[in-house]
């Protein structure tokens, strides 16, 4: 016993030294990064990850290395993680993939470095602002997502949009002329009368707001306007356009064409209903489905597998048309999504990050994403190359391009998160939507939420 304290005292430092000796190289290596070539952290969402990894290596130069950091899957979690870093003025958040609806929110908080003609090559900022007017290389709908209060705060990478995917045989059976614009009413009716169904996204999440927004805009209205006024924005959902949108949702919910999981439907749930195994079963004739651009590659890749078309012939029965009209004769406003690249306002290397952002969003990268991952470009130049590659049917490429170009943005507001959640709270579930009360209730509630008079 009397020896043990001494012996113990001698042993402890030895183990400590051993541990330190083991750790030291690791620590030194960790420090090495900051003293030599700077590393830019690029936060990506998990879509097309392999292409992003490849691109990070390609865009790394003698001046900097780009390191990929993966964000969570859900858009809400991505936003929360980025926002928490940026609110804490994290200097290691250099580049980030942003969902278009985050841009106004982040720009308003001062978290994004402004894109100007001075810090980019080829007067990129001017090109983007001109594109909003329809005179630059960027598609209007995509360019529109990165502007906020006369400034440009991100660079469009790829642009997403929704189109109406359908079974040609189903449309034919219904006698629907798909070369002309179709309305929601026609689509729901055609599916109901011909043993088909209608696929939408109506779970209580962001894509349901995408649907509501597209319906309202298709009727010539808006959920909110004057969004740059922040909390004083004008709430417009309680209007004829809002009621028309509610009528269509009710029409679908009450129709035999509604899918059984309508209230929890998302982008994936209705994919399997396009090519049902048994055509004589209820809703066995396939579906009309509004969904994003990935659908084409998805069915192409799942041909012959469960849930996909049985063979090439079945795949040829897949048709596409512009997003349905809310009101007959009035152009539909297809939803616009995608990813924009932003540069963190607190980055240690803002010039390098801006350079890297331009490299990442260059035309060849956009073409790469389209051809390998089915994520469609945001510029006309890239679209031309994708069309020339022959990987996609020409009319489909043109449909995507027009849809992004003439699409309707979701409200651009620093409080978009509040707006979206408030709408979801009052419009979900779709089976409870009532044209006489839902628009009014959601308008009042949204107003209260914006004024801080109601909890979300």
């Amino acid at each position, binding site marked *: 016993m009397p020896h043990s304290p001494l012996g113990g005292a001698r042993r402890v430092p030895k183990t400590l030294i051993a541990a330190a000796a083991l750790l030291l190289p690791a620590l030194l290596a960790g420090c090495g990064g900051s003293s030599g070539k700077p590393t830019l952290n690029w936060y990506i969402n998990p879509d097309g990850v392999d292409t992003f990894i490849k691109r990070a290596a390609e865009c790394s130069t003698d001046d900097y290395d780009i390191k990929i950091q993966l964000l969570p899957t859900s858009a*809400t979690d991505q936003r*929360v993680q980025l*926002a*928490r870093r940026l*609110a804490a003025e994290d200097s290691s958040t250099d580049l980030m993939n942003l969902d278009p609806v985050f841009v106004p*929110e*982040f720009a*308003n*908080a*001062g978290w994004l470095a402004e894109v100007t003609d001075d810090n980019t090559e080829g007067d990129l900022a001017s090109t983007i602002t001109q594109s909003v007017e329809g005179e630059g290389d960027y598609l209007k709908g995509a360019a529109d997502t990165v502007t906020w209060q006369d400034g440009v705060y991100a660079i469009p990478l790829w642009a997403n949009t929704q189109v109406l995917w359908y079974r040609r045989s189903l449309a034919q059976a219904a006698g629907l002329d798909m070369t002309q614009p179709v309305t929601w009413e026609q689509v729901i009716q055609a599916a109901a009368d011909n043993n088909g169904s209608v696929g939408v996204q109506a779970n*209580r999440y962001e894509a349901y707001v995408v649907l509501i927004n597209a319906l309202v805009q298709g009727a010539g209205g808006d959920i909110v306007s004057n969004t740059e006024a*922040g*909390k004083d924005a004008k709430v417009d959902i309680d209007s004829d356009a809002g009621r028309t949108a509610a009528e269509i949702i009710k029409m679908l919910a009450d129709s035999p064409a509604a899918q059984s999981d309508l209230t929890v439907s998302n982008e994936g749930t209705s994919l399997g209903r396009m090519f049902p195994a048994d055509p004589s079963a209820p809703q066995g004739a396939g579906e009309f489905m509004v969904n994003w651009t990935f659908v084409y590659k998805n069915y192409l890749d799942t041909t012959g597998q469960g849930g996909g078309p049985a063979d090439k012939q079945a795949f040829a029965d897949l048709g596409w048309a512009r997003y349905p009209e809310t009101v007959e004769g009035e152009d539909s406003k297809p939803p616009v999504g995608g990813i924009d690249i932003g540069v963190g306002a607190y980055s240690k290397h803002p010039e390098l990050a801006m350079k890297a952002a331009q490299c990442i969003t260059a035309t060849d990268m956009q073409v790469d994403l389209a051809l390998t991952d089915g994520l469609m470009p945001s510029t006309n130049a890239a679209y031309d190359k994708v069309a020339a590659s022959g990987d996609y049917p020409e009319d489909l490429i043109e449909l995507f391009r027009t849809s992004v170009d003439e699409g309707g943005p979701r409200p651009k507001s*620093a*409080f978009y*998160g*509040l707006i979206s*959640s408030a709408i979801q709270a009052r419009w979900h579930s779709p089976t409870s939507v009532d044209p006489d009360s839902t628009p009014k209730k959601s308008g009042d509630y949204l107003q209260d939420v914006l004024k*801080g*008079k*109601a*909890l*979300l």
Partner: protein
Amino acid sequence: VTTTTAPAKAGAAPATSDRSRAENRLGQKLVAPAIILMLIVTAFPMLRAIWLSVYDYALTAPDDRDFVGLSNYATALTDPLFWQTTGVTVLYMVVTVAIELVIGFGFAMVMHRVIFGRGVVRTSILIPYGIITVVSGFAWQFAFSATNGFVNGWLPFIGDDYNWFGKTTSAVIAIMVSEIWKTTPFMSLLLLAGLAQVSEDMIEAAKVDGATWWQRLWRVIIPNMRAAIMVAVLFRALDAFRIFDNIFVMTNGAQKTESVSFLTYRQTIEQFQLGMGSTLSVLLFLSVLLIAFLIVKVFRVDLAQARQEG
């Protein structure tokens, strides 16, 4: 077991000598760093939350911060959503604590009386408590899932495609089951400590007097472990009132299953409304204080006695 160890000093006011005063001063100096650290890590956030709660302040619009006085509190306390979540939270608390108390007491008796395999029995009862709540939440979510869970198959009166997370009542039940499974061991551990304090002599005496097992339980064992039961109920009630993980994992607050903690989380973390979020956390803190006060009153237990300081 606990016979007199009567401390000589108790009661009599100790004469304060120079030496004891010096010792006191030294003691104060020695604990000062710890107190200061505590103040920094606990008092500062609490005061800041109170300060933030009187502002209308969103993380995404830092320049638009407005002083609004108590208006956030008025909004929260008049909002139906706040009262609905409070109601659900109280329901979670009352039901889970009640069931855990009963099952936990049973487990405690088993752990106390078990003769062979004592280590194995005690360990297996405690295993759920060693599992991270998020993991247990996922496990039970899968168990209740209509597509690949086993619960629907095991329950005879429920259809195979019954969606537990589709309605408020069933979703709340699923969340409660996960919560009870996870924390009953904690309850039984606290009760076991209480059981160990009940003098065997008293139980023997009751036996000799002809008391049945039931009478011994209600007249001897339970009254003598009142303090331990109160501590167990108090700890679990305060914990249960702050329920969050299971709801987050299993329903993400859908179908009106959200608790006050979840509502607070949504305002602060998801919506970046730091002002309203802080208001809700202050209200949550006050509710927890109130519950603690009520439980101490109901059990009429002297806390000092419960800590064996009497």
